[in-house]
């Protein structure tokens, strides 16, 4: 059915048409239109019977008490269980140790292993966020995502709830199963992307577009700070597949936290 016909049917069912002639003619001439009208009317009539829902006075008092108590008890600074910036300090320290060892042990330290020197250079000069993407493209250098730390930390990294959180959501995005309250599919993708382009720009992800947000409660279910709120983004105008990088931007600060390669 055409858009105009659907809008006529909706308006007829809602009783908002001044002149119902065209709409009535449509449903009389088309079985499909009549069927759609009946469905709209059935739903609207059923929903008209839904009474208003209100809190009782006792429920309100309890709500006010519990919320005010929680707000008053909140510490001034919320410490995340596993702050990402402290993990970055381990990553940076690990990289320096590795590169230092390579330089000492290798006879081609300054003429050969450009990949390692370049990646160190990029990690020194660039914000942590872009280091993730650029180093991931360097030859012979593993993408220094939060998981790739020193060997001693690798076991801890494997059990890192934040990493699990990012991996699971990246997998959902790539398989087209990502769903959040504000996820974008099809025609919505442009709208969600445009609303969040400024934040992505601040995260140096100008060539990425936002697909949606992962909310605090979702993060809380992984044992993370329930105030966490992440924007999920992928490179602009790419089809999603297993190799699509998925970026996670902390929405309060617009800081890039992780790119799942």
């Amino acid at each position: 059915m055409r858009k105009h016909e659907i809008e006529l049917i909706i308006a007829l069912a809602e009783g908002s048409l001044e002149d119902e002639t065209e709409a009535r003619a449509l449903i009389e001439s088309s079985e499909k239109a009549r069927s759609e009208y009946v469905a709209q009317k059935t739903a609207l009539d059923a929903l008209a019977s839904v009474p208003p829902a209100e809190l009782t006075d006792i429920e309100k008092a309890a709500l006010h008490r519990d919320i005010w108590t929680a707000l008053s008890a909140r510490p001034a600074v919320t410490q995340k269980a596993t702050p990402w910036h402290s993990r970055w300090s381990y990553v940076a320290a690990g990289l320096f140790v590795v590169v230092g060892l390579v330089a000492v042990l290798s006879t081609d330290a300054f003429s050969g292993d450009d990949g390692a020197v370049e990646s160190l250079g990029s990690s020194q000069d660039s914000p942590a966020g872009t280091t993730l993407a650029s180093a991931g493209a360097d030859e012979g250098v593993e993408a220094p995502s939060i998981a790739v730390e020193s060997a001693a930390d690798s076991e801890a990294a494997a059990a890192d709830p934040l990493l699990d959180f990012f991996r699971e959501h990246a997998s959902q995005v790539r398989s087209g199963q990502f769903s959040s309250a504000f996820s974008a599919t099809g025609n919505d993708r442009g709208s969600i992307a445009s609303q969040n382009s400024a934040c992505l720009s601040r995260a140096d992800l100008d060539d990425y577009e936002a697909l949606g947000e992962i909310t605090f409660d979702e993060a809380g279910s992984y044992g993370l700070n329930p105030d966490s709120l992440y924007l999920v983004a992928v490179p602009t105008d790419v089809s999603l597949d297993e190799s699509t990088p998925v970026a996670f931007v902390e929405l309060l600060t617009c800081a890039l936290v992780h790119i799942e390669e």
Partner: protein
Amino acid sequence: MTTAAKDAVLLARVAEGDHEAFTEVMKVHEDRVFSVCLRIMGDREKALDATQETFLTAFRKAHQFEGKSTFGTWVYRIAVNTCYDQLRKQKRHPSEPMPEHLDPADHSAHEAVEAAAIRPELQAALASLPPEFRSAIVLSDIEGMSLPDAAQTLGVPVGTMKSRVFRGRRLLAQHLGNQNAI
């Protein structure tokens, strides 16, 4: 001063520990937020939890409220989001529904439950809708929000909102029809 600007001032006062401002914000929005949560969650206890979580989040994130919309639109968006998260958790960890636990001192609670009750077949039909269609129906057809306001609440284009309402009603009618046929 615009409504949004007034809201921003009130929120700033709440953030400074002004209980009077807090009570004023709650008084204006609590019933509607609860109503949205109840119709999406379909269960009073879960709706009360979601309502509390909604306001906690709204007050904690008050610094993010830029006044581009009214506080109401902003908090209803948080409410819908909170309900989505709780529905997803339920899906991952389904549990037997608890019997309604009503405060024995709250005699009005029983009346409130009955007053807010909807036909079981309609409740089941609403529960059968995918969350994005359910929230569209709740905001538009139950809460009476205009399509632009509902679209802004959900953060989607008006056209998308219109489509979700249309398809949500169609699915609802199908489910009601199937129940009648049984």
